């Protein structure tokens, strides 16, 4: 296997009226072809912003990628022009978001939205692209797919909209799929449907994947590697096995200890991490977890 993506020293800030938000403060990681990386962390830890940055999707202003490189198949994406980047987005790298309602256009039919990218990236005509769109909807388990091409997003349930998003993401056979909390807004039985679907498609399409989530359980069964983020930094990175079963990192250990388990009767008190996550409006000094770390004194 060879390296598909190499992110180095990524720093992203937002210059807002209330001051600077230090969202991502030096993030580096690699991704192999076909590999699945789970990025976990609490709200505001910089998961979404770091992935938006590598897609060239940071709103600017107020946002700015201060420094870093994102090498994808030999090219630094951060140096590409917007129209070069647009050709990569959707074709080579696709992204699906937490709330499909906000990323689907409510006034366009599902068919129009899927065929758009097929026409742009694959040069298909209307008949070809509609046929392919129906095949894709069928693949993600939407019954009566051809007829449903003419329906609008509000005519689908939450789980079905997320399936549509996945179909759109897969439409051009991307090498990398970034999924940002794709199941967070869904009920657990629907989440299970989506996870099974993604697992199966990932192998079928042989894509690499980044799955962002705050639910540690969700990625335990899918990811090859896990990266734990906190305060705009990576706290720990390792195989799924190392991070979930053998972590020595105080934040990961604290986080896992504060989660009750479905498969054990919850007699013991949950261990709690004192304090709260950092305010990202403060300039980062030192290790972000240090103020809440209870092994710090012993070190």
């Amino acid at each position, binding site marked *: 296997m060879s390296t598909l993506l190499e992110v180095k020293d990524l720093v992203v800030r937002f210059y807002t009226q209330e001051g600077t938000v230090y969202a991502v403060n030096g993030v580096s990681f690699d991704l192999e072809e076909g590999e699945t990386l789970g990025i976990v962390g*609490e709200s505001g830890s910089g998961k979404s912003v770091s992935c938006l940055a590598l897609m060239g999707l940071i709103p600017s202003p107020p946002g700015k990628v201060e420094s870093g490189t994102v090498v994808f198949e030999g090219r630094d994406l951060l140096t590409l022009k917007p129209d070069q980047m647009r050709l990569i987005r959707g074709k080579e790298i696709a992204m699906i978001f937490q709330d499909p309602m906000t990323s689907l256009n409510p006034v366009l039919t599902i068919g129009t939205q899927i065929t758009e990218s097929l026409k742009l990236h694959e040069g298909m005509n209307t008949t070809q692209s509609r046929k392919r769109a129906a095949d894709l909807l069928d693949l993600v388990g939407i019954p009566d797919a051809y007829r449903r091409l003419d329906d609008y997003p509000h005519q689908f349930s939450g789980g079905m909209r997320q399936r549509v998003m996945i179909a759109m993401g897969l439409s051009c056979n991307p090498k990398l799929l970034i999924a940002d909390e794709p199941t967070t807004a869904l009920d*657990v039985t629907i*989440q299970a449907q989506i996870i099974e679907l993604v697992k199966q498609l990932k192998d079928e399409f042989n894509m690499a994947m980044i799955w962002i989530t705050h639910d540690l359980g969700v990625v*335990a069964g899918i990811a090859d590697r896990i990266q734990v983020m906190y305060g705009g930094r990576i706290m720990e990175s390792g195989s799924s096995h190392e991070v979930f079963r053998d972590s020595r990192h105080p934040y990961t250990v604290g986080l896992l200890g*504060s989660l009750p*388990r479905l498969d054990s*009767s919850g007699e013991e008190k949950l261990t709690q991490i004192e304090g*709260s996550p950092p305010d990202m409006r403060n300039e980062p000094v030192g290790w972000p977890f240090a103020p809440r770390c209870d092994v710090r004194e012993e070190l």
Partner: protein
Amino acid sequence: MSSPAMVAEERKTHDGDDYILEVSNLKKHFPISSGIVFQRQVGAVRAVDGISFNVVRGETLGLVGESGCGKSTTGRTILQLYRPTEGSVKFEGQELSTMAGNDLRQMRRRMQIIFQDPFASLNPRMTVGSIVSEPLQIHKMYANKQERQQYVEQLMERVGLNPYFINRYPHEFSGGQRQRIGIARALALQPSFIVADEPISALDVSIQAQVVNLMEELQDELNLTYLFIAHDLSMVRHICDRVAVMYLGKIVELGPVDEVYENPQHPYTQALLSAVPVPDPVVEDNRQRIIIAGDLPNPANPPTGCNFNTRCPVVFDLCYQEPDPPLIEVRPDHYVSCHRVT
């Protein structure tokens, strides 16, 4: 076999369990109207559709199920924030569904609610001090201003908020701290029963444990009874003594948590539990998932027969016939509503 309400009656006389709450055949239907000038009712959302259960004093009963299945409506109808369409709610032996005015207000002191969203449920223009003391003023307790302030400071301290911040506004606090304010407010009138409606869902993982530990400590200290509404099934196993599983306005399974989690009987409970991811790759790799197809049916138009028959992996002909399966005790304290089981 007998219905849970009847069994409850028997149990009460048998082993003298002290029920703080007895709910029987409770229904809450929301009318759907149509027409602009002349509103006429064209149907009803059957948010809660005939549920019966009891809550033992001092226990935590979990209420779980997917969004829209009627959990919040159940909690609110018990507290009479919505008046029931049908059925009975007895709190400490007194019927609430027919109670009104001052009697109901007096009962409300003993029953409180904590909401999911610590951002939306606190008035942004009120200080923490006035938020926590508002119920005291409504119920004319601690008329002396100084004593009241002292009491509010004690409450703040008890829930882990620095009383020094008594004059600050909600937006100056983090999510977890705001949920503590909500808890302090709920405790102000010294209730015996609290409906906690998804109290930790909006909080960061590292903050959830703080709030849950606080709720458990307060329960021991003040002998509180909780109805804990949640969709996080792992947390429910941790915090609850018993659990009721709801599907489309009905309770499909009810029993002690360890019993239900280790030995689920209803096909929906089995699918629900198997769908919950566990943060352990070894467990995940060896799990058998039961994937149920499709979505929750529309509660305005539930299926004929068993409510789960559109998604059930083991459905058979009887499941399409009325009446739907009754909730029946299959083992001591463990109730299930399914034709396959009973």
